[in-house]
């Protein structure tokens, strides 16, 4: 039997079906928990963010339009944002400039990561691509993604000239773009 698609499960959540949330949790919690633990390096904190993330999904199911985007991508984006926010709170970092706007209300779906096998294959491809990057590019990209650092912060932390950091992050993203879609 084919597993229920995310869109059908989101529809069921809108009607208050707990089992739909349970299924989505089983489908995506390991993917998310791996990322959250990598960012936070604290299992308990990662668990709390994970739980809040799915609670938010449950509460906001009515607002999520499956036709406009990929649920796992939405979970990855929001989960990463929340983990980095928590990481920053812990570090008590400097006030960031308020962004003038943000426009990521929808997430175009270019990768089908609903399917577990395809998701696993994509994960392997990304891991291989990261490993194939020159070590300095990979480190710069990982500081940006998993530590939430800007290019200036990476330069400050590593002592590498800002221009060099920019080149490394940009080149790393160019290499990954082919795989990420």
């Amino acid at each position: 039997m084919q597993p229920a698609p995310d869109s059908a499960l989101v529809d069921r959540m809108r009607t208050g079906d707990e089992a739909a949330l349970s299924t989505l949790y089983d489908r995506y919690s390991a993917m998310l928990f791996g990322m959250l633990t990598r960012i936070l390096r604290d299992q308990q904190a990662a668990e709390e963010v994970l739980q809040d993330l799915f609670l938010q999904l449950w509460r906001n199911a009515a607002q999520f339009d499956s036709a406009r985007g990929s649920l796992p991508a939405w979970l990855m984006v929001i989960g990463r944002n929340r983990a980095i926010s928590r990481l920053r709170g812990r570090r008590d970092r400097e006030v960031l400039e308020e962004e003038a706007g943000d426009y990521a209300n929808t997430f175009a779906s270019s990768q089908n990561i609903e399917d577990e096998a395809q998701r696993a294959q994509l994960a392997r491809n990304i891991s291989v691509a990261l490993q194939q990057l020159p070590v300095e590019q990979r480190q710069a990209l990982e500081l940006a993604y998993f530590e939430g650092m800007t290019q200036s912060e990476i330069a400050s932390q590593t002592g590498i000239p800002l221009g060099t950091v920019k080149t490394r992050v940009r080149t790393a993203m160019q290499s990954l773009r082919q795989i990420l879609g």
Partner: protein
Amino acid sequence: MTTPHANPEDLDLYALGALDGEEKQALDAHLRDCPQCQQQLAAARQRTALIGLAAPPMAPRPQVKSALMDKVRAEKRAPITQATPSKTGKKRWGLRFSFGFGLATAVLAFATYEFAKQDLDRGKQLRQLQAQLSQDAAALQAMGQITGAPDSAQITLLQQPNGPPGQGHVLYNARMGLGVYSGQIAPAPSGKSYQLWLVPSSGAPVDAGVVDANQENGAVVVRLTPGLAPKAFAVTLEPLGGRPQPTGPKVLVGAAS
């Protein structure tokens, strides 16, 4: 004169959060008025988020799911997010004292009074209140912890000039990093969320979670890093699901002292 569209590579870096300084400001300015690049940014956000798949999947402990499902069932019994439109279509915004905060205040007053008597089984009383008020179990538990602590603080969050009508309340204990929020704000526009922030004396605002417009029929629990003293709490209007840092206008603000 229109500015050229954003370079896809710049959008990737923007989505990654790596851009800063003048580069980011320039892109912010362009994105404000360019729906096409906004759509490209949405795609870039998904693309960059997938880098996280490089982290090996890890199964969380079974207790995490159990606790999640318990919370969901508790909310189904006593919804904390469900709006209850007025039959007359009129809402008394402004200085309206929310039911949720009324509950918190009642618990605080009750606990304080009983604490003074020093003959109270506080847990028993809280359980009675829980049953009586059919409140969300997690919120009530948090309230019990906070109201039992002498170093807890109450903060009233007031609407801002030109902002939507509303009011909120936070009962917070910095030592525990634990609080409850209740309040009511005019419904958020489609595709937007209200997000609560702890504003520390120094450093970046700390995400305290997305809150519903109508949170007056039940408080939402806020768990933050213990020891982080608030200068203020604020609610901002953010893109759906919230953001790591405030990006939208302040809707409610309340100083902690």
